[in-house]
């Protein structure tokens, strides 16, 4: 074999192997989607699945409206707490982040990213559920907010760091105070990146079971009261899938499908926003 042919052969082999491995990496994703869709669709195809609350086994027409609304409320409250704090901390780290205090914040948020989510649930349980002696959506939101916080902080920081220094200097050279430049010039410029980060955090919080397990606890009755136990989609999947009843298992698959699609949409949305950020940053 000539050297050239050998080169072409080895390059071709390497490419093939890479394609094969990439394909392999996509297999689990495909399987998850396939299973969720094929098993969940029969449940989801009945409109009452979205309008009715959970029902015990043997009572047809059960749905997950209580869980969809519950997940929405709990993740919403967690977002209201975590996103402003996280975004402001992220800006702080990016813009003023050379101090000792900043490196502590950074370390803490890195540790928090890696913290097992069940530990966060346990924390909220100890701090809110135990003293109040009942489960509540609020306690679940606390656990979810702590889960989201470090993700929001670090993605905000990296989005803000991407903004070219010239923009910041131009703002300051106009005689504007530094905090206004940070919040009113740099943050809007970094907005798509920040939004991406918060969307990812929201998606993660929506899909987590452990933090809501012994905080929100679940509630078969439709409830909007944040001080009481509340249903959520991951909990429906967790509980109903473990029952021996076919109809409840069906509901679990349906709830899983709803969850997967929700998270997928949020993720795709965040990628779309991120692309805009990259295009924008390229123009600055």
């Amino acid at each position, binding site marked *: 074999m000539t050297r050239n042919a050998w080169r072409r052969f080895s390059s071709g082999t390497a490419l093939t192997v890479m394609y094969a491995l990439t394909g392999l990496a996509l297999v689990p994703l495909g399987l998850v989607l396939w299973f969720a869709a094929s098993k969940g669709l029969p449940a989801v195809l009945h409109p009452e699945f979205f309008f009715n609350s959970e029902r015990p086994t043997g009572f047809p027409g059960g749905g997950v409206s209580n869980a969809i609304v519950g997940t929405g409320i709990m993740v919403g409250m967690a977002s209201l707490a975590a996103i402003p704090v996280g975004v402001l901390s992220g800006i702080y780290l990016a813009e003023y982040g*050379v101090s000792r205090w900043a490196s502590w914040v950074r370390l803490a948020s890195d540790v928090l990213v890696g913290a097992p989510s069940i530990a966060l649930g346990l924390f909220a349980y100890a701090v809110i559920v135990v003293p109040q002696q009942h489960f509540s959506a609020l306690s679940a939101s606390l656990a979810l907010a702590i889960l989201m916080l470090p993700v929001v902080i670090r993605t905000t920081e990296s989005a803000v760091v991407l903004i*070219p220094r*010239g*923009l910041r*200097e*131009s*703002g*300051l*050279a*106009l*005689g*504007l*105070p530094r905090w*206004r430049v940070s919040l*009113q*010039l740099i943050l*809007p*410029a970094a907005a798509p990146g920040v939004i991406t980060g918060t969307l990812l955090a929201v998606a993660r919080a929506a899909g987590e079971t452990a933090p809501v397990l012994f905080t929100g606890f679940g509630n078969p009755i439709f409830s909007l009261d944040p001080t009481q136990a509340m249903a959520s989609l991951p909990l429906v999947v967790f509980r109903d899938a473990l029952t021996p009843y076919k109809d409840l298992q069906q509901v679990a698959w349906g709830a899983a499908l709803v969850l997967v699609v929700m998270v997928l949409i949020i993720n795709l949305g965040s990628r779309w926003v991120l692309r805009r950020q990259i295009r*924008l940053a390229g*123009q*600055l």
Partner: protein
Amino acid sequence: MIQPMAHIGRPELRTMPGAAPAKFQVDSLSFFYGKTQALKDITFQIPEKRITAIIGPSGCGKTTLLRVFNRMYDLVPDARAKGSVVLDGEDILTTTKLLLLRQKVGMVFQRPSPFPMSIRDNVAFAPRLLGWKSTKISEIVQQSLERAALWDEVSDRLDAPATSLSGGQQQRLVIARCLAVSPDVILMDEPCSALDPVATLKIEDLMVQLAHDYTIVIVTHNMQQAARVSDFTAFMLMNTDHRYGELIEFAPTADLFNQPQDSRTEAYITGRFG
């Protein structure tokens, strides 16, 4: 032998620095980045409503000197200046009114840096944040764009994103943005180095126009540019023993280019080094 240059600077202003009142009085200015000295004992006066060019080889401290005039160096940790730089009777090195100083002394950077918003908002941004009356702001936008010789090109698309402008237009937009806060002085750090020759000429014309009302200090690598537009020129050089920048010669532009007093100036403008 240096060829005498004809048409250098604005002939009507070819006077000694003393003839125009000084806007900046720089006295024994030294500058340090941490322990490294970047400027040593710089003393000269920047005349009001004139164009002063700062030239010299790369790394001699031109940008460093320019960033003293609006205290932009405050952003660099450990940077400090010694000596005094008096602007309108106040030493800017010790002033506590930093934001007012920066409104009074605007700056245009090498790379045009439009804000990621509309053309109108770019100009209106600072006046709005400074809380100026909103009724006045549209007037300010038009006036600033007119003064920056951009109004005719953008008046029908003020709401288009600023990034859709050409590089030269962006640089004029940045100048308009800077004019919107009514500065006295405009600092420019190689404002044309990212532009093509036509856009460069437009900016140069604009500078000459603006010099009727504003004091302009421009750093440039381009000696022809300094010769074309400036009234006064400062030549800086890095001291080879100590590696700090020094002011070698400061004179009306025509004098500096035609009869340099220092052999190092002569060597630089005839292209023997730098």
